[in-house]
């Protein structure tokens, strides 16, 4: 029983992932009929940069979905991460220095509250995260209204999102790459990852196997919150400022990306490569539809139909 070098979940065993990547190519080819620019490296790199925000956020979402839960507090966690990071700059140079960690820490704190409620109070995640989302929104409104908010991104945030360490590859993509590698490592090589899958499969059995199911769930939510906030920080860097409701556009796409990538919404099954494919799919689809000169109504219709079409291609569940 020799071990293959490639981790089990990444071996091309899952046809869904392969088909998802095929869909990406199909989408690009389809787009190139409209404009050959869709195949230009510039455009593709730009898409990767934009995808990296969703990618980072979807990574956290995936952890939570693998657990069999969901995180609906993404929109305002993203916003809070961005706003708090920018806010830190009000506190002089040390503030600017700590801006990014501070933003992420705020996200982690929100995730901590979610995790505590889900894991220790056993409140369904779908509702408690909705409530934390409302509370964080309230906090941000109070904050913006009352405290002369500082909301420009620091140069470090700008650099993190749009700067270049490797020529022509935006740093945002590198951040996503780093987050992705870390996520794959976590999911496939650590006890945390194993436990995550186990809990998602059957929490009761995982508990009876002596896994500290509550701590794992708490951790997953903290990771999700932190990554949402990191996504917000990147987004603020990209826009060079933070603003209210900048995270609204990330909730449903992040869920869709994770599930399009073959992760089971009820938990326990899914590969990170699939999520990568899902993120790129969603980003490309949105972008291509955005520049095609169709009425918004048409865009929405095509978006919906294409997602369902792709799911029918490979997202079908086994007959029960």
């Amino acid at each position, binding site marked *: 029983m020799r*071990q293959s070098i490639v981790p*089990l979940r990444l071996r091309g065993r899952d046809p869904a992932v392969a088909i998802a990547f095929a869909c990406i190519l199909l989408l690009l080819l389809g787009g190139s009929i409209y404009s050959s620019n869709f195949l230009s490296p510039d455009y593709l790199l730009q898409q990767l940069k934009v995808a990296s925000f969703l990618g980072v956020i979807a990574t956290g979402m995936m952890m939570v979905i693998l657990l069999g839960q969901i995180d609906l507090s993404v929109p305002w966690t993203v916003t809070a991460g961005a706003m708090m990071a920018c806010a830190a700059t009000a506190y002089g140079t040390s503030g600017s220095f700590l801006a990014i960690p501070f933003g992420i820490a705020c996200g982690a704190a929100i995730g901590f509250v979610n995790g505590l409620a889900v894991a220790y109070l056993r409140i369904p995640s779908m509702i408690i995260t909705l409530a934390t989302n409302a509370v964080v929104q309230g906090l941000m409104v109070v904050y913006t209204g009352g405290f002369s908010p500082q909301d420009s991104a620091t140069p470090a945030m700008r650099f993190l999102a749009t700067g270049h360490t490797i020529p022509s590859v935006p740093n945002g993509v590198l951040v996503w790459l780093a987050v992705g590698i870390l996520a794959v490592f976590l999911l496939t090589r650590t006890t945390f990852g194993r*436990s995550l899958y186990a809990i998602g499969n059957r929490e009761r*059995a995982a508990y*009876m*196997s002596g896994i500290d199911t509550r701590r794992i769930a708490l951790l997953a939510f903290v990771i999700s919150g932190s990554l949402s906030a990191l996504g917000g920080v990147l987004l603020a860097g990209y826009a060079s400022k933070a603003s209210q409701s900048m995270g609204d556009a990330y909730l449903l796409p992040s869920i869709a990306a994770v599930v399009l990538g073959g992760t089971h919404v009820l938990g*326990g099954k899914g590969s990170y490569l699939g999520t990568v494919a899902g993120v790129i799919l969603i980003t490309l689809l949105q972008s291509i539809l955005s520049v095609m000169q169709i009425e918004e109504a048409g865009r929405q219709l095509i978006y919906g139909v294409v997602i369902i079409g792709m799911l029918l291609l490979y997202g079908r569940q086994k007959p029960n």
Partner: protein
Amino acid sequence: MLLSEPLLRMEGISKRYGGVIALKEADIAIRSGAIHAVLGENGAGKSTLIKIMAGVTAPDEGRMLLGGKDVAFSSPAAANAAGIVSVFQELSLIPDLSVADNIVISNPPRRFGMIDRRAQRQIAEEALNRAGASDIHPSSLVKDLPLSRRQMVEIAKALARKPRLMILDEATSALTRSDVEKVFSVLKRLRSEGLALVYISHRMHEIAELADDCTVFRNGRSIESYPAGTKTDHQVVELMIGREYKSVFPAKPGVEANKAPVLSCHDLSWGGRLADITFDARPGEIVGVGGLDGQGQRELLLALFGVLRDIKGDVQINGRGVRLSSPKEAKSTANSIALIPEDRKTEGLMLSMTVRENLSIAALGSVSRNGIIDRGAEAARIDELLKLLAIKAATIDMPVSSLSGGNQQKVVIAKWLMNRPRIVLLNDPTRGIDVGTKQEIYQLLRKLADGGAAIIFYSTDYDELIGCCDRVLVMYDGTVVRTLEGDDINERELIGSALNIAARPAERRATP
């Protein structure tokens, strides 16, 4: 005897699941007014056969004749309509619905298109009565019932459909003896009413008592059909396992009485369900827990495993008082406890994960460092265990759900052995397991005990308690009413104390 035209005849049935051949050219003929026992090891194809009869799966090859006519069922509903009803090995009750809802589930009585709840109650009460389970309230939710009651509901549900052919796949595996007797009298009555019955069980004496015809399966083939009573138990078992068969239970070496107990319990109580339980378990000892089902045995094991809250009393491990608050704490090296749970599907296994992942899940701590899994160490441990337990799986990277029931159970046991526990709690581990595998498990338990582990072994099977255990705690109503030792561990004493017949009132007072 087999001459009369059978009600159902299956010929040349084959079924494969991917690379696994579940059935190969199997034949069987079932006649009305008789009970047909199907025997075979775990994974022999019994369940697959009856799933085909009941329309749950379709065969790849072969034909099925019902009353002489070719039939093919596309769904369980179609089979029901043809009068074939089954009680599956994996219960098919809906936990969130009431008992009455479940009993009439496939064809509820209707008034104006809506379900007539009053009529439904009546039907349910009647069916429960017929199954000898009138103690079950038709309005209670199935999920609130213990396993044994659920099996009774399942049987009542089958009866309520007024079948022509009724199939019971290990339907009595969780039943207590008195329930089994009730069910048997029902089955005998049904037989006399002209029903055809198919009965699957791993308990030989049940088959001896009930069966008229028998068919033995091995590796997906029907090996032989014969009238009941024409072969000795020994011959049957050899047919089943295809090799010679020796004594089931390993010898008891006897324990040195002066060894310090590894686990000792003093006045353990929990809510109203456990009261003043006191016992010791020494290394090398197998302590049986007996009694009727649902007398607190399950709770006792859970309490020792850190699952229950607010436990009163004193638990000592290696002479050190402990208060466990989670299975994680229980399995830690300091305590080193393992629990093989009752229900493997919900508490023992992550069904859609691979055999490998299931095997190492409880021992992740010992094959990892700083949270990072050492894959070499993991593989080595797993190899070791696979040799020890002979788990039948095409590859260990397939989902555990595709193993047969018996092999799944072996995985549950194996995953805890990865941890090398010093205290092993077992909750009816041989339920639904064939004799061959059972024998392996008994041997394994003895080997563990000899290696210095203390074993607490709850079983609903008296033979097991008698054959395996050095000592047996008999529980009644949440407390230990008697402790049997040596020659006292026999069927008469076990049953007597389980029913708490006031044979020895002094004993009761002696263990308060």
